């Protein structure tokens, strides 16, 4: 018997719940949870939820962004960044999370999936350090 991966379970749950609502959706989800219990894969529920979120994002064209800055950003700036990302990734929905990290010193770090744009001062200083350490 082949191994069941969290991704396979998430796909099955998505297909089973697609287009359902109300009691029917609750019943399907209940059955899904029962199946996880019976197959003894409840421990993988976090991974399954993550995979389910990925499937959902793909279907709806959602882009999740993590923006880290040294200081808190104004809502006007946040809005501007979100619009830029919307345009760049041609995404109808952008869900952004904002973080504050003093270590960055300045600038910002934007993460979309496995793509990272790092314009923080810390990373620039790190690059300068590497450059100066290089044998010439």
């Amino acid at each position, binding site marked *: 018997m082949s191994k069941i991966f969290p*991704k396979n379970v998430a796909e099955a749950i998505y297909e089973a719940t697609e287009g359902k609502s109300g009691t029917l959706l609750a019943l399907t989800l209940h059955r899904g949870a029962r199946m996880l219990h019976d197959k003894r894969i409840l421990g993988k529920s976090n991974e399954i939820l993550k995979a389910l979120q990925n499937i959902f994002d793909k279907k709806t064209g959602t882009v999740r962004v993590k923006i880290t800055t040294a200081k808190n950003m104004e809502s006007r700036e946040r809005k501007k960044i979100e619009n830029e990302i919307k345009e760049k990734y041609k995404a109808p929905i952008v869900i952004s999370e904002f973080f504050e990290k003093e270590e960055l010193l300045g600038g910002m770090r934007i*993460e979309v*999936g*496995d*793509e*990272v*744009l*790092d*314009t923080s001062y810390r990373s*620039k200083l790190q*690059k*300068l350090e590497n*450059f*100066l350490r290089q*044998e010439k």
Partner: protein
Amino acid sequence: MSNYIVESLRKEIEAFKIEIKTEKVGRVLEVFDGIAKVSGLSDIKSSEMVTFSNGEIGVALNLEEDTVGVIILGDFSKIKEGDEVKATGKILEIPVSDSILGRVVNAIGVSIDGKGTIKAGKTYPIERVAPGVVTRQGVSEPVVTGIKVIDAIIPIGRGQRELIIGDRQTGKTAIAIDAILNQKGQNMICVYVSIGQKDSKLRKLQARLEQGGSMNYTVIVSAGASEAAAMSYIAPYSGVAIAEYFMDQGKDVLIIYDDLSKHAVAYREISLLLRRPPGREAYPGDVFYLHSRLLERACRRNAKYGGGSITAFPIIETQAGDISAYIPTNVISITDGQIFLETDLFYKGIRPAINVGSSVSRVGSSAQIKAMKKVAGTLKLDLAQFRELEAFSQFGSDLDDSTKRQLERGKRAVEVLKQLQYAPVKTEHQIVTLYALTKGFMDDISVAKIKEFEAELVDYSERNAKIFYKEIKESKMWTEKGEEQLKKAIEDFKSNFVK
């Protein structure tokens, strides 16, 4: 002084240009035994180089649906779960330049000989598609090893791949070192790739090459026994990348892989850790490709494509003479011949312990110089017949005269082909000795005195057969006049030699 420091620092900083671009970044999920499983890095290519946040580099080998299996080239103990991993978009490259000659480097091209960093002019990818058919040319120039039995019976040409195979302690590395030592003044660059060897052995080898003045044209690439399997895995590819750098300049290169058995074992270790399915002897399914793609990069390029050649001497260590094991059979089938060394011969005192019957050079005869071909033409057959008759004569039955003659000639041939380590013989001297042997001049010399006869004959003939020597050096062939002179010199010498 402080002004000078500030000024030079300012200049350096002014030269620094920062380029901000989106990077592909992944996260370490787990690290174990030199392997990292990384999430993210969705666009990564196979064999692409990645950098870890602590500066170590790695190579992506397993591209799975959600994760990437990376081999870590360096200290993996400092890499933690959750560390950032950046894709570089480049296949692993090593720095190369002319100043690498005479140096000892590790598998990623960093010097380990304590002589400081090597100024790199260029970088060369360690994985590269072998030169195509159109760019190649047949083997026609010899690689003179200075080992009589090889140059006479198993000749090797530039661009050939000749396997050196045998049990432990039979003189495999010795043949390789002798071949390197003999390349002095032969317009050949040598690359010695040491895979999974003890550092003490490598140090000894380096000292021997330095002593013989051979390090000037040699590069040593080392992946020691104490280093990670990943280093052993990439070392031969780094070696051949260095060789390609010199070949691209139209130079001839001799590369020695010592040894590919340990290379296969390192690859097996990595493959099993990456959970690739094991096959025969637990090696992965692509272990043939591992060696074929490496050895296929040895070639002789035609003049239109810049000339140059890479001659490869892969070494394989067998267990109890079993050449039918998985890796030996693979490499035998890939190479253009093999030099087979035997423990029995070694302990009988026949050194180099080459079994002439099992050894073969499939393309080298077309590279052998005419003069050598003329004197050594029947030597292999004579030796094979001698071995057969020798076994037969053990029964002690009466033998006819011709058989006795063959046996006596065979004994002398074996004696002539014995050679001390680190004592390569010049081609012209080899020809003189073999001429004396095959024309029967040694038949009445006692076997115990053959070595003495040979040494003195070479010395005498050099002084008294100058035309012959001149012709060999210039045209690689002799005329009747040259042969006559040599014959006379041998006869004169023999009449004064105390048998």
